[in-house]
């Protein structure tokens, strides 16, 4: 649980390093809190996917992260009638990369399930290789979507820190393995801490504290 809290805390704290009280209204900030919670979940899934992986726990939490990612996308699609323009031809590349991230996460999860996994990959190492490649694509496109959209990481050092965190998580797997076996939390814990961090994110930005 400590690893999850630390991961979510790093993601949310980076957004507060500059203009921490700048809110855009509860609707907009809550939708983006879902997005940051989904990104934190992605990082946590990567950190915990080391040797002696609890495949079932990894898979179940993957569903939770996908659900939060879908909720982030549909929050804006359903709640802001102009937001759909961000997903039509001519939309900025950072929004298309958000779509790429969502789709690759969906494929990452669904293609890892038997029998499709067996149908797609001749052996387990082949599956592991492509699962890692797709995970990196998902993480990279999500990072681009968040950093370049520039909604909450307006200062250059926030963007740099965010990229450094994403690259470190994706590339330092041998180091994460040395931390020992981290027990992967369930969806209830992930959703609870996402809600706590998300509520703080919205409250600090929109309440006159």
């Amino acid at each position: 649980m400590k690893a999850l809290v630390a991961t979510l805390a790093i993601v949310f704290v980076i957004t507060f390093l500059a203009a921490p009280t700048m809110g855009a209204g509860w609707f907009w900030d809550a939708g983006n809190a879902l997005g940051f919670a989904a990104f934190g979940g992605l990082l946590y899934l990567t950190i915990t996917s080391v040797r002696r992986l609890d495949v079932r726990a990894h898979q179940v939490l993957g569903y939770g992260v996908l659900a939060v990612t879908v909720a982030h996308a549909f929050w804006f699609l359903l709640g802001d009638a102009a937001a759909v323009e961000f997903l039509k031809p001519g939309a900025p590349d950072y929004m298309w990369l958000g779509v790429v991230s969502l789709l690759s996460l969906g494929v990452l999860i669904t293609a890892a399930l038997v029998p499709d996994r067996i149908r797609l990959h001749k052996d387990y190492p082949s599956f592991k290789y492509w699962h890692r490649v797709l995970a990196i694509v998902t993480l990279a496109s999500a990072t681009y979507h968040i950093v370049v959209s520039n909604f909450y990481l307006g200062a250059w050092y926030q963007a740099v820190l965010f990229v450094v965190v994403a690259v470190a998580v994706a590339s330092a797997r041998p180091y994460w393995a040395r931390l020992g076996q981290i027990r992967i939390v369930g969806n209830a814990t992930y959703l609870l801490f996402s809600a706590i961090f998300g509520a703080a994110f919205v409250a600090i930005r929109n309440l006159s504290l």
Partner: protein
Amino acid sequence: MKNVFALTILLGVIVIVFGSPIAGEAPAIDYRYGSPKPILPMSFAHIDHAQENCVLCHHNYADDTGGGLCMNCHVTEQDVWPLLEQQFHDLCRDCHAEKTAAGIDGGPPRQCMACHLGDDLP
């Protein structure tokens, strides 16, 4: 699982094509100010921006790059038209965001519909 995900994506595509059933009034995308393609309406009230220096937006008053309304150039000039969204987001949204960050009520910093519903204010 894959069927649920496929259905979710299909629902997303339906919302993008037909619009949200719960978002309320949708902006009327249309050809505006001679634009080569349909564009979103934009709300802008001079009365709300009276405290700003005119040349902050009307750069043509100072740099002699044309006259008339913003849109006369920004949607009709071939070189400038592709930058319409980026330039206006950078100018309007960033200014709103800077003011909000400074604790000033500087207009909507992010919500799409707060600027793109259109209005009849002068």
